[in-house]
């Protein structure tokens, strides 16, 4: 996997823009790339900036004032949203946190143990198993979700928390990433030394290999957390009781009701703003000590 190795950060990708020697002379700035990237950033931030501002507007301000002028109704909007159907909105948020948090934790555990086994051991059927698992990525979610629904209905498990949690534990991409990280982070002689000391295979994995894989596993966790938090199709098919809805499905039903009632627009907009907030904060916090590059399977050699 040496082709995936990331060379040491170049000045161009600097995480510490010219601070030590003071600002560099103006002519040393590459304007074309800088401006292009800024335009890209504006494009990507525009809808987020819009929802942040729109969420502060009262119902009448939304239609009467200029879009990017902050309003005065944020507190009212939040309390209206909290009062909507006895606070079902916060129930959705809690559900999403549960589905994504617990789901990602279980998924990371399964990915870690599978990726470790695929990377460290040589055994019959290893590549076949790996390829079959990876083929799971290619399956359209709906070809899985419809029969998953029918099968879970046989087991009387539809419209339950489990019906959304269980199908999302196995993540082919998580197994793939874990295998790369395990191959790069766990040296074979360390595993061998563990065996010399008489440690069992499971003990070697939990005590020696697992701590070495942690930085990669953080990535698997984040990836799966985002995937579950953002999933819409599976809960859309599985759930009918809105007390169990995740936030994506809740907001969708809110929009469905609100589309013809402009009075509900402010609720939908405030709801969208509050739904975006946790993941944005999560990424801003995490990126301080975690590199985005890990998401594409990059490992330092």
């Amino acid at each position, binding site marked *: 996997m040496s082709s*995936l190795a990331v*060379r040491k950060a170049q000045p*161009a*990708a600097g995480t510490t*823009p010219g601070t030590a020697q003071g600002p560099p002379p103006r002519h040393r*700035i590459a304007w074309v*790339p*800088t401006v*292009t*990237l*800024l335009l*890209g*950033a504006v*494009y*990507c931030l525009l*809808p987020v900036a819009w929802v942040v501002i*729109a969420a502060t507007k009262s119902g009448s301000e939304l*239609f009467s004032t*200029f879009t990017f002028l902050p309003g005065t109704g944020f507190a009212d909007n939040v309390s209206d949203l909290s009062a909507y159907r006895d606070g079902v909105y916060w129930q959705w948020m809690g559900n999403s946190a549960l589905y994504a948090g617990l789901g990602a934790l279980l998924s990371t555990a399964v990915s870690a*143990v*599978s990726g470790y*086994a695929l990377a460290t*051991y040589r*055994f019959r059927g290893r590549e076949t198993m790996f390829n079959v698992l990876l083929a*799971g990525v*290619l*399956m*359209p*979610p*709906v*070809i*899985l979700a*419809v*029969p998953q629904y029918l*099968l879970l209905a046989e087991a009387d498990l539809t419209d339950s928390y489990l019906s959304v949690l*269980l199908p999302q534990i*196995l993540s082919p991409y998580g*197994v793939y990433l874990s295998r790369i990280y395990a191959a790069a982070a766990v040296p074979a002689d360390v595993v061998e030394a563990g065996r010399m000391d008489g440690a069992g*295979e499971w003990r070697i*994995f939990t005590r020696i290999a697992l701590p070495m894989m942690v930085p990669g596993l953080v990535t698997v966790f984040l990836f799966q957390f985002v995937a579950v938090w*953002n999933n*819409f*199709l599976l809960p859309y*098919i599985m759930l009918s009781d809105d007390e169990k809805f995740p936030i*994506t*499905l809740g907001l969708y039903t809110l*929009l469905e009701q609100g*589309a*013809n009632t402009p009075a509900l*627009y402010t609720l939908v907009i405030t709801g*969208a703003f509050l739904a975006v907030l946790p*993941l*944005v904060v999560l*990424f*801003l916090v995490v990126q301080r000590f975690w590199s*985005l*590059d890990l998401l*594409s*399977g*990059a490992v330092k050699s």
Partner: protein
Amino acid sequence: MKSAPYGFLLPAALLFLLFFALPIGYAVWLSFRKVHVLGLGLGSGARKEVWAGLENYTDALSDSELLDGALRVLGYGCVVVPVMLGLALVLALMLDSDKVRLAPFTRLAIFLPYAIPGVVAALLWGFLYLPDVSPFYYVLDELGLPQPDLLDGGPLYLALSNIAVWGGTGFNMIVIYTSLRSIPAEVYEAAKLDGATPLQIALRIKIPMVAPSLVLTFFFSIIATLQVFNEPTTLKPLTNSVSTTWSPLMKVYQDAFGNGDIYAAAAQATIIALATLVLSFGFLRAANRRNKQEAAR
């Protein structure tokens, strides 16, 4: 020790069997079945599941709703995939260029949409497309320019494509950028000494060297595009132009749960899965063959 790897892989294998293999097998099985109704279909035993052969498949292939949906998604994909990957490549090259300012900030900002659920992204853009609340219409209005309906006809494709491009560019940019950074610096040194411009270095050295990651992002973008569901479903309440069968997956959902015909839905889902496999692997093979030819030259 011999059995250890199998033990370690047991949870994944069980989950795979239960939630991937079994549902796929069941869907394929259902696609060859149908319900036979006796008389008025009342009373127990009046509705019986029977073997249907290829009937569901021939029905699906001649179903105009499914074909129209497939054509819509092909048109949509022809916009989304090149634009998104083109943007991702350009931005990755810009990030990788020398003396660029604010790279960490812009990199994070462009990646941000990845963290936003497709439903919420569609909802945000949906509001930005609505004349009553959109800043675009405000500006057009102030300037006295015509105001197109973004949620109808041709513009609807662009409106939907824009949501996908917005959501996917950042992730692909990171994948390409990671592979750009793995090119050893020495590779450029000779070119720089020979007086090559940054543009020449980008075109002649960087892009060919990141070709494998471009192939990978292309591959996953095709799959994601063929499976589009969330964005059009979310825009549906805002416009009458998005039907319940706008994309093939929406048609499958509609047949399975709206019309209650799980057999037709299973056949359609199987066709979509096969089409996805053929298209994506066909693309991979073509890309591999080109790579080999270039290597041989």
